[in-house]
């Protein structure tokens, strides 16, 4: 959708092109105004619907992508209260994520350390087509990566780089039983199966540029990811995807654009064809072909970073191979279905029969039928092919079109009661229509330029059709101004009745592209309160104050420190020289809920630590100046938190001060 955002000129053009739609807009505006009136009447009612009394919990968790913040934010719904920000692809000085010795490896890639990204699509793990509250998968759009977040701890557990991908936008899409998480490439780039460097020119786009769809296997018990194989696909841009359900469970669908295969000025070059494609891949068949050895082994180089649950240490593994499937060698694997040009969202309704394709430049929303698709394939009703991949006849697959839906349809979700809801980027509204007859029945304005929307479980076989959250790209006058940069805004809409009702506006962090929401009861009971100190197997853990110590190894100094209310042990340290590499391995000895300790050193060119009870974290510090340097706890842990501090004596280079350490004037006692 950001492509469009940048295409302001294009949007203007679109307005002209959609002059016919303007007629419909009249009625649209009328009903929008009617809605506004209803909304203002419903204000008091709305307040009671979003009011979660102090001390009471929200009904749902919502996980929102942080977009360019590289994080995931967690909100309570319906209150819109922010509960947590989880760093995923971005360093987070607040808790040391990406700065500590333990977590640095999470951000390793084949490009080196990449401490940021553009995080677009959260997707919850599934069991039997329903969200199960175990994990959240998210994509990194910039440096192709997929991450898995553990919803017991609300921490990033794993990040895997995707090779042969450039711009991992079309990602990550779990199948109905989490067999695979599927990731498609946004930019096509030259890929050759031998894995050798080739001197390719932009003009060779059509011949040499390829896309890839990655099939990441997910371990049923641990959630661990593993890149099983990739399908090499035509050199289009792959935008979004979604898996089938019920009868279409074996299939996954991808929207494509730039089927013109332009390599430059794509806003024009990629908008020439009247139709682009919806790519349909039979993932079960793909997995079968891969099992049967139809794959080509290709050299690759990519990182797989995992956090160990017991040590809290992330380690990187470099992988050097990937298996490739070529659609032309795998009959029945992939088909192309024409759709109006430059589609964005592809959403499959809860029954698994309808594939709704939201073409942001289209004046209708085509609804394709899965059963028609199978019939069309069976009758070989093809209108051509792309590199051996059959193109199905549009009219044969089509179930119907939603006429005059609004301008710039982007993404659709479902309420499980026979209705679909589509976001309209250009006309800034959410449109409700019936799956029965594809007729628009309601519309509500949103403020402004809505991208994705989310209904809890709205992409599963049984949505929780009570609320809809619209995620808006433009905020303008909705909140108190905060200079040129404004918070993005989410809007909570009540969809329990015939008419949609606006309930609440709330600001969000970064840019939420997509979000997922889930009943609190599927996550809250499993939430970890603290880590077991006994099970902490960090090699530098210090489990008793009597074991704390300071050791010198060449120019490295290792401090084995403990933190407990309200002191650090040791808290007087000497024998450190300017330029030494000092590692503070701090273990939080607490075994109680909500008692993290922070750890910070004056002038550290790194970050601080935030150590959860029972865990060990390591902060590196290279002192730059001689003198007495304070260190302290940064998290107000107790009444004597301010007293939770100490000193390190830093001697000039070359001065041999023996290593010494103490607490309370003596060596730490048992």
């Amino acid at each position: 959708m950001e492509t469009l955002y940048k295409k302001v000129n294009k949007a203007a053009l679109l307005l002209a092109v959609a002059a016919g739609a303007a007629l419909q807009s009249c009625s649209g505006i009328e009903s929008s105004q009617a809605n506004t009136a209803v909304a203002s009447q419903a204000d008091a009612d709305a307040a009671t619907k979003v009011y979660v009394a102090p001390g009471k919990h929200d009904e749902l968790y919502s996980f929102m992508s942080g977009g360019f913040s590289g994080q995931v934010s967690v909100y309570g719904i319906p209150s819109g209260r922010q509960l947590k920000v989880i760093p995923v692809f971005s360093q987070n000085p607040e808790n040391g994520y990406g700065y500590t010795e333990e977590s640095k490896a999470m951000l390793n890639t084949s490009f080196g350390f990449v401490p940021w990204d553009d995080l677009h699509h959260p997707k919850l793990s599934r069991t039997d087509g329903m969200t199960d509250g175990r994990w959240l998968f998210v994509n990194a759009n910039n440096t192709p990566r997929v991450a898995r977040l553990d919803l017991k701890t609300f921490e990033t557990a794993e990040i895997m780089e995707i090779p042969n991908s450039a711009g991992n936008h079309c990602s990550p899409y779990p199948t109905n039983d989490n067999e695979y998480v599927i990731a498609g490439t946004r930019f096509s780039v030259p890929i050759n199966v031998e894995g050798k460097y080739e001197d390719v020119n932009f003009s060779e786009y059509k011949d040499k540029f390829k896309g890839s769809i990655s099939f990441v296997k997910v371990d049923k018990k641990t959630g661990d990811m593993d890149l099983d194989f990739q399908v090499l696909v035509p050199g289009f841009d792959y935008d979004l995807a979604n898996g089938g359900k019920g009868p279409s469970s074996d299939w996954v669908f991808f929207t494509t654009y730039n089927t013109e295969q332009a390599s430059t000025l794509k806003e024009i070059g990629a908008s020439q064809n009247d139709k682009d494609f919806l790519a349909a891949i039979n993932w079960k068949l793909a997995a079968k072909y891969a099992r049967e050895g139809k794959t080509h082994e290709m050299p690759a180089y990519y990182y797989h970073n995992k956090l160990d649950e017991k040590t809290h240490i992330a380690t990187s593994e470099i992988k050097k191979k990937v298996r490739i499937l070529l659609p032309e060698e795998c009959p029945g694997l992939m088909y192309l279905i024409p759709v109006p040009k430059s589609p964005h969202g592809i959403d499959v309704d809860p029954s698994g029969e309808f594939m709704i394709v939201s073409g942001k430049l289209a004046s209708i929303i085509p609804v394709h039928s899965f059963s028609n698709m199978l019939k069309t394939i069976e009758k070989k009703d093809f209108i051509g092919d792309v590199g051996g991949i059959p193109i199905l006849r549009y009219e044969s697959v089509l179930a119907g079109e939603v006429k005059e839906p609004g301008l710039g349809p982007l993404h659709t979700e479902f309420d499980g009661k026979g209705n679909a809801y589509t976001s309209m980027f250009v006309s800034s509204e959410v449109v409700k229509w019936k799956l029965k007859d594809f007729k628009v029945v309601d519309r509500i304005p949103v403020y402004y330029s809505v991208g994705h929307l989310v209904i809890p479980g709205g992409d599963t076989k049984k949505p929780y059709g009570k609320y809809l959250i619209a995620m808006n790209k433009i905020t303008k006058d909705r909140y108190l101004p905060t200079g040129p940069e404004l918070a993005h805004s989410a809007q909570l809409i009540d969809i329990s009745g015939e008419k949609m009702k606006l309930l609440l506006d709330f600001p969000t962090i970064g840019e939420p592209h997509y979000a997922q929401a889930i009943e609190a009861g599927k996550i809250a009971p499993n939430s970890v309160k603290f880590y077991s100190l006994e099970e902490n197997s960090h090699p530098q853990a210090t489990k008793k104050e009597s074991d704390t110590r300071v050791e010198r190894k060449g120019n490295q100094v290792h401090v084995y420190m403990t933190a407990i209310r309200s002191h650090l042990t040791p808290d007087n340290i000497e024998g450190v020289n300017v330029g030494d590499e000092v590692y503070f391995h701090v273990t939080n000895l607490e075994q109680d809920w909500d008692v993290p300790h922070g750890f910070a050193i004056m002038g550290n060119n790194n970050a601080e630590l935030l150590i959860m009870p029972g865990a060990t974290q390591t902060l590196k510090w290279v002192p730059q100046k001689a003198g007495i340097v304070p260190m302290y706890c940064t998290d107000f842990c107790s009444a004597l938190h301010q007293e939770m501090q100490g000193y390190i004596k830093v001697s000039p280079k070359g001065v041999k001060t023996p290593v010494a350490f103490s607490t309370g004037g003596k060596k730490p006692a048992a």
Partner: protein
Amino acid sequence: MKTLHKLLLLAAAISLGLLFLFPMWKIYVQAPQYPEGLQMHIWVNKISGSTDYSLQNFNILNHYIGMEKIQPDSFQELTYMPYIVFFFMLTGALIALAGARRLVLPWVFLLMVAGAAGLADFYMWLHKFGTNLDPHAPIIIPGMTYIPPFIGSKQLLNFHALSLPGPGSIGIALAVVLGLAVFFLERRRKGASIKSAEKTLVL
């Protein structure tokens, strides 16, 4: 001794076994920042809490007021009390099996003495911890002591403490009640048989 009474006395002896299954005493504390509360459980042979970490958390909180660390190792009682309980269980059972009617009352009496001694020890223990405070403690409030309630509730700074006998104590109470019942029932039966004997004599 009547068989029923023997069984009752045996039940009295066995009920002391509850002391090994449940705590004797429970101290509950609650504070604004501890809505879930903290519990300390005093057993005949150990000190524990509602979670594996309750004792550690009690000690962390107590160190601010300079209270001595509560460590199960520092209570000798916990090592010998189980033997005293075993002793009562064993002797109770033997008296029941032997039908030694005359030993019932002494057994109950001794048990009551032991129970009272236990309570007294517990009281002293609370008193010692509540008053024997480190003069260098971070928090010193002149004149303030922190003796938890022996039974019932009490406010100690931000903590509301409640102290109640645990299910283990019911074991002792049950043993005493059953023992006394056996004693009185036996006495009445004996009285009745003497009376009937007298009657026969008169006749």
